[in-house]
């Protein structure tokens, strides 16, 4: 599938002008709150009619203001998982789940796709024990899983997820993320995932669309785009494979193109792919190979670019082709005389890991 969006919409003083194409997999719509992410998703779902533009899924036009096309929301077959699950309070979990299936009956999807099959969706989301419950007796995490299942069972061509984890605490998020990953890998439905969390995007997305003040500022594969994200907790993502486990010290050694990383023991088996996320403020720079320091991970690279922001500067490093971001004070930049092309060593204080 592909999603083509090219729309303009003005609401009060806010102007949204977005143009991008989303490829199969998870496309993350990333940006600060107020950037227009939710408005854009509402437009794709048909809840808002854009002033001008065109939206097409798999070549089928949903909106084309020039030709006067506007497919109403109930005929779009675009699933929507809302931030506030929006389960129907007067129906049981089971009734909520099958609500959309009723309308999807006519058009069977290709065989083998897990979406649309009640048993496999219930199994995928681990909600088998909740079927007879009422929505108001569910926890926030359970509600979101049911909401995801309800959207999937309507056999959507495209699944929209508007910050589905934003209303949950850290523990609940950790509970749901694996289900979203399984969805991405097994449900066979492309997902447009709205988020302002770099960690979530790093873990889930294939493609990233960065939205800033109503405009698309960057589109591309997650590894290239995420380091450019102008975000409060900027960071970088490295694709890695598990090389070996160092059992006596309870460490795992990872291979990345930037070099080896040693991290606290992961449960992933040798050879598994993982995604490492390194926050910019967890990276220190040194001009010489540091000796006798406690940090285990030191990557060598060159300064690729420096973006100064007041007293701080974001340094983009090129470590053998991989991008690593470091956030330093302006004073450090001057003391080390950092400039593009200068070889440096990046000392990484901590790495967070997400399986991919």
């Amino acid at each position, binding site marked *: 599938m592909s999603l083509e969006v090219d729309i303009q919409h003005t609401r009060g003083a806010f102007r949204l002008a977005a143009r991008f194409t989303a490829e199969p997999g998870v496309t993350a719509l990333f940006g600060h709150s107020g950037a227009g992410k939710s408005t854009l998703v509402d437009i794709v*779902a*048909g*809840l808002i009619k854009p002033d001008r533009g065109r939206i097409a899924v798999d070549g089928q036009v949903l909106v084309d203001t020039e030709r006067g096309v506007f497919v*109403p*929301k*109930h*005929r*779009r*077959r*675009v*699933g*929507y998982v*809302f931030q*506030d699950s*929006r389960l*129907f*309070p*007067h129906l049981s979990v089971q009734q909520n789940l099958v*609500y*959309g299936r*009723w*309308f*999807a009956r006519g058009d069977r999807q290709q065989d083998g796709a897990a979406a649309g099959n009640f048993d496999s969706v219930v199994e995928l989301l681990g909600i088998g024990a909740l079927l007879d*419950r*009422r929505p*108001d*007796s569910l926890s926030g995490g359970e509600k979101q899983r049911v909401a995801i299942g*309800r*959207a999937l069972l*309507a056999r959507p061509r495209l699944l929209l997820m508007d910050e589905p984890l934003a209303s949950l605490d850290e523990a609940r998020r950790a509970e749901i993320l694996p289900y979203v990953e399984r969805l991405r890998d097994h449900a066979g439905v492309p997902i447009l995932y709205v988020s302002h969390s770099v960690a979530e995007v790093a873990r889930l997305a294939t493609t990233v669309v960065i939205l800033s003040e109503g405009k698309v500022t960057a589109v591309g594969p997650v590894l290239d785009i995420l380091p450019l994200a102008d975000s409060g907790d900027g960071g970088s993502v490295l694709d890695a494979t598990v090389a070996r486990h160092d059992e006596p010290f309870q460490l795992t050694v990872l291979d990345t193109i930037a070099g080896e990383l040693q991290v606290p023991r992961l449960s992933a088996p040798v050879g598994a792919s993982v995604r490492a996320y390194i926050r910019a403020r967890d990276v220190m720079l040194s001009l010489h190979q540091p000796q006798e320091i406690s940090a285990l991970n030191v990557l060598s690279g060159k300064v690729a670019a420096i973006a100064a922001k007041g007293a701080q500067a974001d340094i983009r490093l090129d470590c053998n082709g991989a991008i690593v971001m470091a956030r330093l004070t302006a004073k450090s930049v001057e003391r080390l005389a950092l400039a593009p092309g200068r070889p440096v060593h990046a000392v990484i204080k901590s790495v967070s890991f997400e399986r991919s």
Partner: protein
Amino acid sequence: MTEEEWTAVRLSLLVAVTATAASLPFGVAIAWLLARKRFWGKSLLDTLVHLPLIMPPVVTGYLLLILFGKRGPIGAFLDQAFGIVFAFRWTGAALACAVMGFPLMVRTIRLSIEAVDTKLENAAATLGANPLFVFATITLPLCLPGVIAGAILCFAKSMGEFGATITFVSNIPGETQTLPSAIYTLTQVPGGDAAALRLTAVSIAISMAALLGSELLARRVGARRVAT
């Protein structure tokens, strides 16, 4: 109680139930239009619905007589086209009661529809439900207590309606003499006090039963909705 008194009670119940049942679909439809839609002439429709509430009942009754009487423009048409006659029939009493109870019914249902979160309706639409199905499966079940309350208000108003009814269809025993008309007649004749008092007691009993019944029904609907 005498046979005439029972007749008045039966007639009142028939008129009130007919008025409520016949106006309920229109009440729900207009309440939904007023709550959810924006269209030209919305304030006019709102005013029109509320008019019987603010006008003297006698004026409403007289307007009904002009419009729905045998020679009135609407009354003549309905008589010739469908053989439906309102003038001086119990159906006319039901029409008068429906018109008088309508604003109360619409107001109550409208408020309860407005209390249903449009976000839920949008969620249903993204799952493929067309607007009619969304209304039937989401909006209506969620505003059901309000619909019940609106129907009970209309029923109670119908049981007590006097001015518009007597102006429109007069006070014919066995045909248009409802409880209030019968009580009014009894108070005008010597020695009618005991009978008037009996009918008053019946009237109070029916009103209270209706109120209690609606409470129970609303509670059951509410309980079903929050049951875990």
